[in-house]
């Protein structure tokens, strides 16, 4: 077994040396990990393919094909589906049956089974991926349970005994040496291909979509991610990888035991994924390798494998939730940090402070511009720094007339939760430009109304008309692409990503593309370029590379606003953007909002009545789901209804 370790180490060292020398010359995305897998795998197979060590390695590579797919589906996108062992079984049993009963070659039957698994996954996935989060996990947990009951009862599949194969993965036949080495090499090539595809998907623009989907499905939908389609694609991807793993398992082991579809196989795969590093395809490969190596070692470790796995998983997750790959990455970052001691944390903090002041100064400039604009022609608004972010806005093209045309109409909207009426016959209309306030006491239905307009909540009855089209039943991501953009009451930024990527999410425009197209070409750079422009327009360019959770609340709200503006929306829905901000920060925000209102329609939900009255040209007041006031700021200040409701008697 020690030979195995030294060989792996030598191969890894060599291939990473190759990889790093190539990295300088712009390696294609996903190139490094797959080259490492290919070279290291080939060396191990060719050196030890005929020994026990080699057979353990080939078996672990079969599982690694499955876990690499799981890293995309379960780890990165957080779509927990326990469907792997079943599709592993579909691939393995399918090949066994086609090969031993119909005398089809293993390679051909493997292709047939992977395609078949894809189709089955498509059918099954269109049902189960309607569920989210834990519901998806529990619903798919039934799959292995159902499959075990079926397989153990059918003679066709060999029942509890299992199913043998006649052929081998290596198509040519020949000597045992050739068959063993050839089969092993085929597995390694397929594994490298899967790692390559997985890495390319994760580093593409759709990879960013998937990350957001994993953090919060509702935010993803509001930012234009076509969530039902992505979830289905992920399910199919995970199932196809599992089936491919099953195919090569059957082809190299020449026997399919009943235990492959057991829930214990599912558990074993999940443990490989989490030990290796749930978000990284190469980490998932390492996890499979480590676990299979421990299980295959014929010593006290494999006898007490349950204890070893339990302790290993606990320790690894305590050290780093991102598993072994996370530990390695932290180690590399630490080593790099040691070689470049210049970037001390204190400097970073100082940089943000200076940056915030800079942003403040730019915003003050915007105030100046806004004040001048009060008397100027509407087209001149494009000169203001913030306004230039919307140079592609359709309204800009439509010209000043857009100001009067109705953009959004809410007609007789009711919303009931159970017996509770949250919105009662709400009707309002907004033109193409201007700033409109929406006030009301807690629980008045303000956020629900925003959700009805944004699409995350369907009204019980009534209509929402946007730019002349009825969008009442359209999903949130379609509304996003029609020009409705929103922020949330609580900051909904994507933790663990930079400011630039957070804004780039809104610039992706990949809703019509499928995951498969991104293996070839990524549009992430284009989205990042657009996000960079938006940030520059708002005077926030210096924040681009900062991780969002390290920012102050005001800056986080500004990033969220930048994200909402990046798609050049026609309608901007802001849910309490000023909450948690100081008076000074509110004034900066107010100035910015006024500037924005010159080129787009802004609906502002806010508790700060002074702020609303200061910036809004018209104000709506909701109380108990009823629209009780609709008028200008002067009427708003003097209205007895508003005073009794919001100011208190």
């Amino acid at each position, binding site marked *: 077994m020690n030979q195995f370790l030294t060989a792996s180490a030598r191969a890894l060292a060599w291939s990473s040396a190759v990889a790093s020398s190539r990295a300088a010359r712009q390696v294609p995305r996903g190139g490094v990990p797959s080259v490492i897998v290919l070279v290291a795998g080939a060396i191990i197979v060719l050196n030890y393919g005929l020994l026990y060590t080699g057979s353990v390695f080939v078996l672990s590579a079969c599982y690694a094909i499955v876990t690499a797919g799981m890293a995309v589906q379960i780890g990165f996108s*957080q779509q*927990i589906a326990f469907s792997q062992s079943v599709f592993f079984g579909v691939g393995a049993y399918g090949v066994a049956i086609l090969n031993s009963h119909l005398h089809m070659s293993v390679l051909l039957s493997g292709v047939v089974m992977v395609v078949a698994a894809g189709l089955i996954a498509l059918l099954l996935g269109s*049902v*189960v991926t*309607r*569920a*989210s*989060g*834990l*519901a998806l996990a*529990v*619903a*798919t*947990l*039934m*799959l292995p*349970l*159902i499959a075990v*009951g*079926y397989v153990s*009862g059918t003679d066709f599949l060999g029942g509890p005994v299992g199913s043998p194969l006649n052929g081998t993965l290596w198509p040519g036949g020949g000597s045992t040496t050739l068959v063993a080495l050839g089969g092993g090499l085929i597995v390694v090539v397929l594994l490298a291909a899967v790692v390559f595809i997985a890495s390319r998907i994760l580093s593409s623009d759709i990879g960013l979509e998937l990350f957001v989907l994993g953090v919060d499905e509702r935010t993803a939908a509001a930012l234009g991610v076509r969530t039902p389609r992505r979830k289905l694609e992920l399910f199919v991807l995970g199932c196809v990888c599992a089936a491919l793993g099953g195919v090569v398992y059957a082809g190299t082991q020449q026997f399919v035991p009943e235990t492959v579809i057991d*829930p*214990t196989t599912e*558990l074993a795969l*999940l*443990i490989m994924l*989490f030990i290796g590093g749930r978000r990284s395809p190469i980490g998932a490969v390492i996890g499979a390798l480590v676990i299979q190596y421990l299980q295959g070692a014929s010593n006290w470790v494999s006898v*007490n*494998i*349950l*204890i*070893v*796995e*339990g*302790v290993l*998983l*606990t320790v690894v*997750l*305590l050290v780093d*939730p991102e598993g072994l790959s996370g530990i390695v990455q932290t180690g590399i970052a630490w080593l790099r940090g040691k070689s470049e001691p210049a970037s001390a944390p204190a400097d970073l903090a100082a940089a943000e402070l200076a940056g915030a002041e800079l942003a403040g100064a730019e915003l003050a400039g915007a105030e100046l511009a806004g004040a001048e604009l009060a008397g100027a022609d509407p087209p001149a608004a494009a000169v203001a720094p913030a306004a230039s972010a919307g140079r592609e806005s359709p309204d800009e093209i439509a010209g000043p007339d857009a100001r009067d045309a109705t953009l959004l109409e809410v007609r007789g909207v009711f919303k009931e939760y159970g017996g509770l009426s949250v919105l009662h016959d709400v009707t309002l209309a907004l033109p193409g430009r201007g700033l409109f306030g929406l006030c009301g006491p807690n629980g008045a239905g303000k956020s629900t109304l925003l959700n009805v307009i944004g699409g995350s909540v369907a009204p019980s009855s009534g209509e929402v008309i946007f730019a002349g089209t009825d969008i009442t039943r359209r999903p949130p991501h379609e509304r996003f692409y029609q020009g409705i953009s929103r922020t949330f009451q609580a900051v909904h930024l994507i933790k663990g990503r930079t400011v630039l990527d957070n804004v780039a999410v809104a610039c992706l425009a990949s809703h019509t593309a499928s995951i498969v197209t991104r293996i070839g070409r990524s549009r992430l750079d284009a989205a990042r370029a657009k996000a960079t422009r938006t940030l520059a327009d708002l005077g926030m360019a210096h924040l681009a590379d900062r991780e969002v959770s390290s920012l102050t609340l005001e800056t986080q709200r500004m990033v969220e606003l930048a994200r909402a503006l990046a798609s050049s929306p026609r309608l901007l829905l802001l849910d309490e953007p000023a909450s948690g901000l100081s008076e000074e920060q509110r004034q900066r925000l107010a100035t910015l909002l006024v500037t924005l209102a010159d080129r787009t329609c802004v609906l502002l939900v806010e508790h700060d009545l002074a702020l609303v009255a200061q910036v809004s040209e018209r104000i709506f007041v909701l109380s108990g789901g009823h629209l009780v006031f609709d008028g200008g700021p002067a009427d708003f200040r003097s209205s007895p209804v508003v005073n009794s409701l919001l100011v208190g008697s």
Partner: protein
Amino acid sequence: MKFGNLLIAGITTGSIYAMFAVCVSVWYRVSNILNLAVGDFAMVGALGVDNLYRVKGLPLPVAIITTLVVVAVFAYLYDQVVLRIAQDGRRPIEGIVITFFFTFALSFFIDGVAKVLFGTDVHAAPTLWGGPALTLGSLNFERAGLLVLACAVIIGGAFWLYIRFTLGGKALEASGENSLGARIVGIDTRQYRRLIFIGTAVIAALFGIVESPITGFTYLSGATISLTGFLAAAYGGFRKPGRALVAGLFIGVLEAMLGGYVSAEYGDTVLYAILAAAILAWPRALGFESAVSG
């Protein structure tokens, strides 16, 4: 009276599911961690008593008490070492998925230790109430089953009384509703996490002891028990012990009826298909949406 006897069998297994479901959901309320090791504690209870009584020759009460004390001490140590580092450290590990894997690892560890201590054969704790089945008309009541039901009623009732009528119970409920808020008003949520973890571990072990004469356990039985408890807790919405109890009973009765009337061989398969369909049809009504955001 096929129906009556199926119903009795269903309620007996259902009450076992229900108890484990209550253990899972009560601890989830205070810790936000789904405990998948609860069945392994049950397995340790049954096999531990069997080992001490049959192999080591200790008197039965001593064997039972020793086993429960060992389980409690182990649970305490696990909380003090692993959960404290994981949750109370400077970088608390959050997220339902990742914390779930800690209990996965715990389950593996316990199974591995049990394999070393108890071997791989099927064993069971001795029946605490032996004798032939009691009959009432054409209905048969197995004594072991009645004992399980009695334990379920007593432990379930004690839980309910504790939560409903004591200050500790209120504090427990508060830390489940809003952990941060509870901590602000002076409730030591960590203490409740530890208390309930040890408590549910001991209750699970006790149930393992009572239940094992019916089914028999091996060192790998824990995962199956956890799974049924986890499923029943899931259908109760994870945070609601009362609903978990009802869901457990319902799944038990449904399983018995499907096995009796539909197919003895494929009854479970049909059961799982029905359960999967139910989630997909009514995720919100079954409480999944709220559990996800928690």
